[in-house]
């Protein structure tokens, strides 16, 4: 009797305390919604508005899109980005997950921590900071990796940045800067897997590869999907790496390489924000379709 009443009283109290269960949720997200609207939704909607209007503000249908598609750099850019995406997604997902797993299995906490730090350092060298680094790194006459470059048969900077090498070079640069951060995220995610489960698997005879494949990777599902979504979008919106190489090589390689660069050219060189927005909208659509596929197949939005 007495056990039941307090329970029901507690239940009644909690129901009475929260007549609108969603109110707390709304309270929590209010500030974020404000920022989202101000710096997310409004600029995005405005950009989409630009894509469908012309310079005078009149609705122009799909003319900006056809304008972009007819540009002589558009089709090559699509090819470049598609090829880069292949290299980039494969490298990022495989190596980041692999390295995170390897680091997690390391015995010494100190070694693991040191390695995570050292793997991360390039991530701090974003953009302008690394122009000079790559200018020297890719030049066989002054590079610390010159033995590797010469072994591959390249004697001058110009030979290293030949057009055929660019997808690999950009993947290299992007991975060098981006992998460290994702390794840290994956490592943290691995830490959240309860130790008992791993131990149980070990006791049951699972080797490292098996416990990774059967237990850890499935439990990292949401994180891997998140990384894949962002890597896909980041890949299609390739900008920093070709811009960097273009600056380092004074325009010999990487200029007008990607669709995003083309969008910037339209916006800031031709002062044609509308065509630039059209390309941005196309990139957004591709990213959303891919994200939708990933999300649908992995139950990303389910609150566990």
């Amino acid at each position: 009797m007495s056990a039941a009443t307090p329970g029901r009283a507690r239940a009644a109290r909690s129901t009475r305390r929260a007549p609108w269960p969603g109110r707390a949720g709304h309270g929590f997200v209010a500030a974020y919604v404000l920022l989202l609207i101000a710096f997310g939704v409004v600029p995005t909607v405005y950009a989409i508005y630009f894509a469908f209007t012309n310079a005078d503000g009149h609705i122009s249908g799909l003319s900006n899109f056809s304008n972009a598609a007819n540009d002589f750099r558009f089709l090559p850019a699509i090819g470049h980005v598609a090829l880069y995406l292949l290299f980039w997604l494969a490298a990022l997902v495989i190596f980041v997950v692999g390295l995170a797993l390897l680091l997690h299995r390391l015995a010494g906490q100190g070694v693991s921590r040191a390695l995570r730090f050292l793997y991360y350092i390039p991530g701090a060298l974003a953009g302008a900071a690394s122009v000079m680094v790559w200018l020297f790194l890719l030049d066989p006459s002054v590079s610390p990796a010159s033995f590797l470059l010469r072994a591959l048969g390249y004697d001058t900077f110009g030979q290293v940045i030949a057009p055929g090498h660019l997808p690999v070079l950009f993947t290299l640069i992007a991975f060098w800067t981006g992998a460290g951060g994702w390794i840290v995220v994956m490592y943290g995610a691995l830490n959240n897997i309860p130790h008992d489960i791993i131990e149980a698997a070990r006791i049951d005879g699972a080797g490292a590869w098996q416990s990774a494949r059967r237990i850890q990777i499935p439990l990292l599902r949401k994180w891997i999907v998140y990384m894949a979504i962002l890597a896909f979008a980041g890949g299609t919106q390739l900008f920093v790496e070709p811009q960097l190489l273009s600056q380092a090589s004074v325009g010999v390689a990487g200029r007008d390489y990607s669709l995003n660069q083309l969008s910037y050219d339209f916006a800031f060189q031709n002062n044609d924000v509308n065509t630039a927005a059209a390309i941005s909208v196309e990139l957004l659509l591709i990213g959303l379709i891919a994200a939708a596929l990933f999300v649908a197949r992995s139950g990303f939005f389910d609150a566990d």
Partner: protein
Amino acid sequence: MPTDTHTARAHAAPSPAGTPPPAGERTRRRGRVPRNPLPALVLALFLVFFVLPVAWLLLAATKTDDQLVHGNPLSFGSWHALHANWTALTGYQDDAIFLWLRNSAVYAFLALIITLAVAIPAGYAMAMTQFRGRRTLLIATLVVMLMPNATLVVPLFLEINAVHLIGSMWSIILPYAFYPFGVYLTYIYFSTALPNDLLDAARLDGCSEFGVFRRIALPLATPVIALVGFFSFVANWTNYFLPYVLLPDSSQFPIQVGLGTLLDDVPQFNPTVGSLAVQRPELALATLLAITPVLIVFLFSQRFLVAGMLAGATKD
């Protein structure tokens, strides 16, 4: 790896697992002492890949431009050259480098505080509570995150101009504080790492939603707070384009834009720069100064990414 067998044997007693492995298995595992060199090799290879360019950069700051081109790439220059580079760097536009670093610190930290105050509760709510528009919010956040930002500059500029914030540091800090990536990180963390039973137990005990958040979720969220804080700080610190376009005065530049300014004065990139030339070792030194705060913050926040935060929280 031998450590596996050690820990396995140590936990063999209290572990709730089912049948113990057959005797043959156990002896086979004990016998498999030679460590597999492959993981270590892979880790070492990647270590060289990540660290070699940074080592080059470190050494570049100790050289003269001549040594940079003619000397061995991985040789140490001289303390004298390092001192000369430091003097030249600090002399550039009267200590501009320190001004830029200070600006970066102010922008990044202020934005970080706002980001944490905004993103952590938002991510928590989206993961652990039900409310109308939860899914819409998630989708909107994702859409906005995926929008390429070439064309966001113009609307952003107009917006900020409309509230008369052009030229103020808030024109940078407020956009920085909007960090959807961090919200998603928090969302994923809470939805995967925080069991609902914990929260339900607290709710049954009469805690308000905010109480649940403050007393249960927040203490357990230290890893994700560290993660989001760190990534937010780095994103703000390394952001180039927004301050480049929005800040009119070079005395307001953060260090990233400052580095771009220095790069523009390197003779190899701008031949007619004349006597104000910034030599490349100077630029290397400036770059090292620029990345040091990021690395310090990294080391600081790493301490919070500790294993087993939730061990013992629930009895399963």
